């Protein structure tokens, strides 16, 4: 294993500390427990937005703290949910008295730790609403699984709910917007290689050189099935089809098309994937009204990508376009 780290035990804290220094105009970092807060603290009259989860998905979530998105991000150890005693000060710091929306990706660990922290925050008098993001169509949402995972669609939920909070919506309205985004966003990913968690020191699964893993998550866990490596166009179709099928996007509808890199795939390849996804959508008469391409929800140095489609209406489009100023997303 070759990595630009000092000690695997300290990689998350050192990275977050560096992040805080690099973006001190936008965020404040607390080291014990580890928290990334919007500079200047909770904004009076505004619903606070808090998200968190295991590290290793950077820039998610700390990169989205700032005006128009999150008020606090709570990073856990690599691929490991933060603990309730760490999430709790994130929730209280983000509360200006208008309540807090917690945005949780649907993984058993994240849900259980956030659930516990929310109980504790409510005991302290903070109103908390929770939205659980589950946009990954690779996992069947049934009684027989822990439910679909939260992956790249989380960026859309954080951006749009953040804009709703910024314009002054109350907690119930911000939570409803977040739920609406989640109901209209779907993703599917592919891995070309596994990734290596620093304190484990070897790849998280074994993937032969001539195979790719379809339906990958973002924690280095294996996907649904393996296929022989194929062209970008073929793989893009395999990712987009189940997304569109599940979302039931109709001809003439507007969408946001988001091609997300897993961390180890060059931007140029992401645009090759974007090109084919864009073409396939146009062939079906679906209008690509907005787009996003880049590494936003990563899985360490994994090579691969995911395709996300969000069905847009006028309000969601307006909220997507609203100003945002964070380390990783700004316009």
């Amino acid at each position, binding site marked *: 294993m070759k990595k630009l780290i000092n000690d695997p035990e300290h990689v998350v804290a050192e990275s977050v500390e560096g992040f805080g220094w690099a973006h001190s105009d936008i965020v404040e970092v607390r080291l014990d427990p580890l928290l990334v807060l919007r500079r200047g603290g909770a904004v009076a009259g505004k619903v606070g937005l808090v998200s968190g989860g295991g590290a290793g998905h950077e820039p998610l979530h700390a990169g989205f703290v700032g005006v128009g998105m999150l008020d606090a991000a709570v990073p856990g*150890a690599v691929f*490991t949910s933060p*603990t309730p*005693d760490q999430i709790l000060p994130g929730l209280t710091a983000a509360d200006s008295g208008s309540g807090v929306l917690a945005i949780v990706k649907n993984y058993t660990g994240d849900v259980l730790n956030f659930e516990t922290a929310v109980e504790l925050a409510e005991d302290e008098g903070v109103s908390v609403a929770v939205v659980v993001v589950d946009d990954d169509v690779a996992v069947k949402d049934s009684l*027989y699984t822990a439910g679909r*995972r939260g992956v790249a669609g989380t960026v859309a939920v954080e951006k749009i709910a953040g804009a709703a909070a910024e314009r002054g919506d109350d907690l119930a309205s911000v939570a409803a917007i977040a739920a609406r985004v989640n109901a209209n966003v779907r993703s599917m990913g592919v891995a070309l290689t596994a990734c290596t968690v620093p304190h*484990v020191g070897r790849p998280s*699964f074994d993937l032969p050189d001539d195979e790719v893993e379809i339906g990958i998550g973002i924690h280095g*866990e294996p996907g649904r099935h393996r296929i022989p490596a194929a062209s970008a166009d073929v793989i893009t179709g395999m990712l987009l089809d189940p997304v569109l099928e599940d979302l039931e996007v109709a001809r003439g509808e507007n969408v946001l098309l988001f091609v997300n890199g897993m961390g180890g795939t060059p931007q140029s390849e992401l645009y090759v994937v974007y090109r084919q996804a864009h073409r396939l959508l146009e062939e079906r008469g679906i209008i690509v009204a907005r787009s996003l391409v880049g590494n936003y929800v990563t899985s360490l140095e994994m090579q691969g990508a995911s395709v996300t489609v969000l069905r847009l209406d006028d309000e969601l489009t307006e909220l997507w376009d609203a100003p945002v100023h964070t380390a990783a997303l700004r316009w």
Partner: protein
Amino acid sequence: MTLDVAWAQRWARESAAAIAAAKDELVELDRQIGDGDHGENLNRGFQAVVLKLDLIPDAPPLIGDVLKTVATTLMSSVGGASGPLYGTAFLRAAKVSGLAELDAHAVVALLEGALEGITARGKAQVGEKTMVDAWSPAVDAAVLAADAGASPEDVLVAAESAAAAGAEATIALVATKGRASYLGERSIGHKDPGAASSVILLQAAVRACGAPA
């Protein structure tokens, strides 16, 4: 051998040592059907438990006090799903163990409390390839042993061997809860890491009695 506060402290320390020794094995099990962090996370949690116990100079009066320290430390240092699950398990076990010494039926109550904590938090049932598949048969075996007049120590031995059999039986199961459920049928053929670590904790409870594990 009485199951007193000193036993509970030994249980916590034995658990920490056993989890540290089994860390790589748990990582490997979790790597096959999860994300490979179970051994690391639990080890971090139990090492924190040992540090916490070292800071408490005098033995607390009740077994529940020790278990509560274990619970809150695990909850705040493990992360992942196993932090809240084991944390809640030890918390519920602590609640029913406000005693200086456990008789056979109090051991059963402790184990039942742990199982209730796990199912309340994780909402898993028997047969879903989770730690419940170790704890549930453990509780059943403990009840039978206690009703048959076994000593507290033998109740733990019965629970531990039933848990071990339950953990082995998870190999044949399809996971329907937790991260392994994403694999569907591909989860068959692998032992559930949470069930495996549950057995390690129960083995430690037996070892803390001074009896052969």
